């Protein structure tokens, strides 16, 4: 009974992980850029939700568009005016730049919201569904469904919309895309904005279920990386499977082993996958070639 409870919680967490990793993977796949600030940008989204809830009483679920929009604007401007200047240079510079951004954002979050651990308690926070003895909190179920919907929405957007097609074309071959009349500079900014918006939306979801503080972002960034490698770059289904796998494994380790090793699971997975099978297990890349 305990095992099934742990597994169910792991699966529900996995949906959140998949949503988080999709934004990271979009930026990486299209621009060949690792955004080391992804986890902290996500927390900024969580704080948007927190502020809207405490100051204006807006329900966390309704605040998702706000956090996504805030982060979209932030990401768009950031790419256009800052990241674009180093994107063609050696990866030393992009890694350093996004790490600097990460520090700046952490400090910004600490100054604005203090380093205290925050959580949101709504009227439905404590309610749970009893499913043959397995207790499923409504918030977790809700967050899982929302995470899936957001991920699916991004996928459909990339697949069917005009902008989405331009993004995929740019990922495959920037020169050919330019020849075909795609404004690639703008597409890069939109892509970074979309990836950031995904981070913001995931942040809102995290705020609904978990307690958070400004300094926990980096672990999420590394988890995103592990999921993307495990599931394949730009592969939505892969991200979902990998996210659920990570969520379940983490919960099993902290449930039956040492809770202190919880985060170590994803780091071990990360190193092990990279050593054993750097191309991932679930194959197909849908944004085009990653130039490693």
């Amino acid at each position, binding site marked *: 009974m305990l095992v099934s409870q742990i597994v169910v919680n792991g699966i529900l967490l996995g949906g959140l992980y998949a949503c988080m990793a999709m934004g990271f993977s979009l930026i*990486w796949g299209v621009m*060949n850029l*690792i955004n080391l600030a992804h986890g902290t940008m996500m927390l900024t989204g969580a704080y948007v939700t927190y502020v809207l809830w405490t100051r204006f009483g807006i329900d966390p679920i309704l605040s998702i568009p706000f956090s996504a929009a805030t982060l979209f604007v932030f990401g768009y401007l950031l790419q256009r005016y*800052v990241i674009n*200047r*180093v994107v063609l240079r050696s*990866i*030393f*510079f*992009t*890694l*350093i*730049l996004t*790490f*600097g*951004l*990460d*520090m*700046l*954002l*952490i*400090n*910004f979050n*600490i*100054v604005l919201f203090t380093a205290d651990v925050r959580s949101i308690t709504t009227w439905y926070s404590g309610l749970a569904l009893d499913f043959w003895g397995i207790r499923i909190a409504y918030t977790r179920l809700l967050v899982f469904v929302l995470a899936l919907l957001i991920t699916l929405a991004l996928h459909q957007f990339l697949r069917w919309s005009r902008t989405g097609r331009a993004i995929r074309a740019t990922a495959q071959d920037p020169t050919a895309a330019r020849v075909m009349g795609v404004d690639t500079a703008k597409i890069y900014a939109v892509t970074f904005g979309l990836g950031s918006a995904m981070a913001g939306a995931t942040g809102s979801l995290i705020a609904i279920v978990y307690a958070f503080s400004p300094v926990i972002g*980096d*672990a999420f960034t*590394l988890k995103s*990386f*592990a999921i993307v*490698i495990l599931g394949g770059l730009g592969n939505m289904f892969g991200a979902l499977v990998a996210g659920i796998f990570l969520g379940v494994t983490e919960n099993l380790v902290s449930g039956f082993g*040492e809770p*202190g*090793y919880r*985060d*170590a699971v994803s*780091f*071990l997975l*990360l*190193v092990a996958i*990279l*050593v054993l099978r*750097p191309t991932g297990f679930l194959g197909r890349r849908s944004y085009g070639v990653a130039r*490693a």
Partner: protein
Amino acid sequence: MALPEPEPAFATDAPRPADAARTAAKVLWLLLPVGLALLLLAPFQLNLYWMRVLSMACMYATLAQAINLIAGFTGYPAFGNVVFFGIGAYSAAIIMVKAGGSFVLGMVIAVLVPLSTVLLLGPALLRLRGHYFAIATIGLNELVKALVDNLGPLTGGGMGLSVPLPPWGPVQTTRVFYYLLLATLIASVAVAAWLRFSRLGYACRAIRDDEVKAEAMGLRTTMIKTIVWAISAMFTGLVGAIYAYWFSYIDPSSTFDLLIAIKSFVIFLVGGAATVVGPIVAAFFIEYLSTVLWSQLLDYHLGIFGLGIMLIALYTPDGVVQFFRERGQVLHSFIRRQDITAG
């Protein structure tokens, strides 16, 4: 019958880049003994506070030089190199606290453990390139940090380990650690200087520029990369051991701290990749800047440092040595012009 003098292909007073670089290099190398003398005499002039700053600068210069070996010469962005710093610090501390060994033995072990770690993991991890390698090393650092955090009986866990205090008075202690760190720095510079002109160094740069071609030329790339990373790890581990005894208290979050890695990486970038003197100049500059900021803006230190890193990434094209090389070009043409007018 005399042939007409051929037209020179370029204006005679415009120096060729290689000559200019050599002139700049000469100037920098001439400054080196002066700098060394200043560093050796510094403890007799500076107070304890500034000695500490200077010692930190030596420490970071060594760490940056270690990054330079693997990232600058070989092109592998070992972002998580700080893992060897932590391993070194903990190896030395465990030897001294749990096994009752001396500090010298601790330093030896702190070099050997990172060495064997690289020999074990290097060949597998060094197959990865670019982002994959960078993130794999960060993952390794976080993994080892989590292990150290949870192996309480051996490492003290999150409580950390207290290392016995050195038996000397405060002034003497400061000097001992300063000279120890300075000696490590000089050793690392010597290795970098040797690497620059050795077969191994040329092989490294061949790998950095095109690994497939290097392999096709018959270079044993995996072995070369592993050796260079091992040297880098050994220096990093040694510095970690000195740090542990110097600070006499270590815990996982202060020794496996990615900020240390980033700072040494930034120093390496500011100094310019694959140069010998660059990281030293940059370390003293960054450490001075960091100290000034630290004492002034405690609440915003992290953010200001982050902003500084971003500006460096945006506006530092090739590091300080390149800056001096360009100035060297001016200097060179000035000297040449003197020659021309004299002759």
